[in-house]
């Protein structure tokens, strides 16, 4: 799966679920401070990741995900491992 495809899938979900403005979705955007995504919202994000990218997310792996770039990189790494 291409990196751009992964980014597009995540961004589409964030726009639809949280009604976020696309211009805010930069790799540097802090999930909590800039996008107002709370730890509870990770439940939904995990569901989407597992459904769209076909791997199981472990909670402790998400602890270091602070900004959107971290989230993209985490998914890209896991998808590459799978392939």
């Amino acid at each position, binding site marked *: 799966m291409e990196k751009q495809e992964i980014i597009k899938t995540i961004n589409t979900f964030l726009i639809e*679920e*949280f009604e976020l403005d696309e211009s805010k979705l930069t790799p540097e955007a802090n999930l909590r401070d800039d996008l107002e995504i709370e*730890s*509870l*919202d990770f439940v939904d994000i995990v569901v989407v990741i597992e459904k769209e990218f076909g791997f199981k997310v472990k909670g*402790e792996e*998400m*602890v270091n995900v602070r900004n959107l770039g971290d989230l993209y990189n985490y998914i890209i790494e896991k998808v590459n491992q799978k392939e």
Partner: protein
Amino acid sequence: MPSWKGKTRGGLLGYRIFVATLKFFGLSVAYFILGFVAFYFYLFTPQSFKHTFQFYRKRLGFSSFSAFFKVYNNYYKFGQILLDKISLMSGFKNNFTFNFDGENYLHEIVTNNSGGLLIGAHVGNWEIAGFLLKRINTKINIVMYDEEHQKIKQLLESIYKESIVNIIPIKNDMSHIYTISNAFKNNEIICIHGDRFTEGSKNIEFDFLGEKALFPAGPFYLALKFNVPVTYVYAIKETNRHYHFYATKPKVYNFKGGLKNRNLLLNEMMQDYVNELETKVKKYPEHWFNFYDFWKN
């Protein structure tokens, strides 16, 4: 800004002495000893004294003279509640009485098969309420910080005869969220405090007793996220042997998604909570058990 760090003060030896006193001499003797222990804390915990004193002076408008006494009474009542909890949960002889305003609301939650969220505060002690919640025909879970949970677990599990509630510790890996989600699906009750600001989480500022204070959004967001009814609860020790439990009418806030809608609903429900909390604090000023600087300034 100061925030609560997830640890509660109190030593192992102290607990052991009080457990032995309760077991062999009863609650009245334990209360007598507590009078000296409370005085020790009154003299030798300057930070806590300062914040509690300011609470009575600035927030509730007591005179300095009255506030000095209120601080001592506050420490003493806090100790009494800890002793009551040990006494009740350990099956030691006691003769407590209880009344329960809003018990029907909790039965309604269970009957509606939706699960429900009970949000309390560090006003009174709702672990005591666990005894009353036994009358509600479902499993009761209390969400609390892992560090506090471990401490309480190690100290008291050995003496408690029955487990009234299930503890869900808050974990960094967010596993508690899945546990909470499953509990709601099983029509269980989740209890959580709504008055502990912690750094690194979303907090919203409200006017509380005439000054701005931060309240954590997380507990309230739980109700929105899982679309469960929420009620605000308090268990207050009104006399040496009597507790009064309050539960407000449950409300479902119908969250449909989106950040804007979420923030609006969070503000609405948290304002409801803050109003209720303010009423209770004014009614029971000596039952305020946040011993740190709760207000922004």
